[in-house]
């Protein structure tokens, strides 16, 4: 059931991301709500479908975005790998774990993006990218982690309670 649930949730998140969140900028940065959803979902101790969610999210964002070489896909898979490691180890403080995963994943995703865009000849420098895009995006992502974590955590509780009942 939780894998099926990923389809409407991630599609809704992608629509929100492209229509609203991408327009709300802090300097040049924007939040990535799909990344935060994956982090909040993946770190939950009950969740077993994290990889499926990451694959679906990566495929969807790669399809929509012009970012070359499957950067979103790779970034989300790395995120889920880190989330699974945290799920096994620091289960006592999942909100802190989510914040840490969002922080690390944003840096990884942006690092990959900068690298790939520089290789493909885009007119940008590493410092400019970091100051203009990455730092503001980090702040927005960390701010949005709290409400999204709350929503995803309560959703996970609902889903796994239902599954336990079944």
């Amino acid at each position, binding site marked *: 059931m939780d894998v099926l649930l990923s389809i409407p949730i991630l599609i809704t998140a992608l629509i929100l991301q492209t*229509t609203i969140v991408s327009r709300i900028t802090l300097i040049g*940065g924007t939040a990535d709500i799909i990344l935060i959803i994956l982090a909040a979902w993946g770190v939950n101790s009950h969740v077993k479908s994290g990889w499926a969610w990451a694959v679906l999210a990566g495929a969807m964002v790669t399809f929509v975005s012009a970012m070359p070489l499957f*950067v979103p896909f790779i970034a989300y898979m790395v995120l889920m790998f880190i989330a699974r490691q945290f799920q096994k180890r620091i289960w006592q403080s999942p909100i802190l774990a989510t914040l840490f995963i969002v922080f690390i994943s944003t840096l990884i995703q942006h690092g990959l993006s900068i690298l790939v865009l520089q290789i493909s000849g885009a007119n940008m420098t590493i410092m400019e990218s970091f100051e203009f895009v990455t730092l503001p995006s980090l702040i927005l992502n960390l701010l949005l982690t709290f409400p999204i974590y709350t929503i995803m955590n309560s959703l996970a509780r609902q889903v796994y309670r239902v599954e336990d009942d079944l």
Partner: protein
Amino acid sequence: MKSKFPRTLLGITIALLIIGVILLALAGYLQPAFGVAIRPVVSIQEWFSTRFTAIYELLTVPRDVTTLRARNAELENEVSQLQAQVIEQQQQLNEAEVLYALLDFARDRPANQYVAASVIGRDPSPFLHYLIIDHGSDDGIIHGMPVVTQQGLVGVVDAVTAGAARVQLITDPSSYVNVYFQSIEGEAQLVGSLTGDVTLDMIPQELNLSEGEIVLTSGLGGSFPENILVGQVVSVQSQENDLFQTALVQPAVDFNTLTAVLIIRNFQPVDTSPLIPTANP
């Protein structure tokens, strides 16, 4: 007989008295007396009336409040609906204004065939400046078609699905457009950037470029048709040691408020990639 007279006299006396009283009353002579007599009655009536009204209101007002509340809610609902209608009509008016402007632009250039499309999203990555529009291959849109508005050049179609397309803006860091200047002879290359600023590169040092110069597409490279307005030169940077000058350009299009665009459907972009020499023989 004896006893009848006094009765008749009494009757006549009473009648006269009554007539006298009526006449006195009609003449107004009995007002003070009436006042004294009626005042207590009026006071009593007033007291009863006040109490009755109080009791009546006590019993009936709650029903009225409920009715009024219901009516108020009904009216508020009506006001909300009217406000929503006003907002909707305002939006339709704004859309119509944009479409009229685009239509005027299309009429000015009858040689081009346009497809109008609405902007429905932006690229999820903050590093990229791309739009998503609501028309795709079903409407005849293919990769490489130029995208404009009535103000000027927007970008180029980068990817297409059946019902949507992705447009690379001229502000994207990977965007390059060949341009020329309206009033001086010379060409340059317009380059996007991460910050959304567009700069002119490859401007020969001998070119006397000044602020306010209009920049138009040159058509070189075959990616865009010529003579589409791109923007205006804001500042020029020239250093003696450099091979070329650079200049900052203010785009004609406001990319932050872009809601509708035109795709030039009958322009066939030229693929020059086979002509570009590669490292391998």
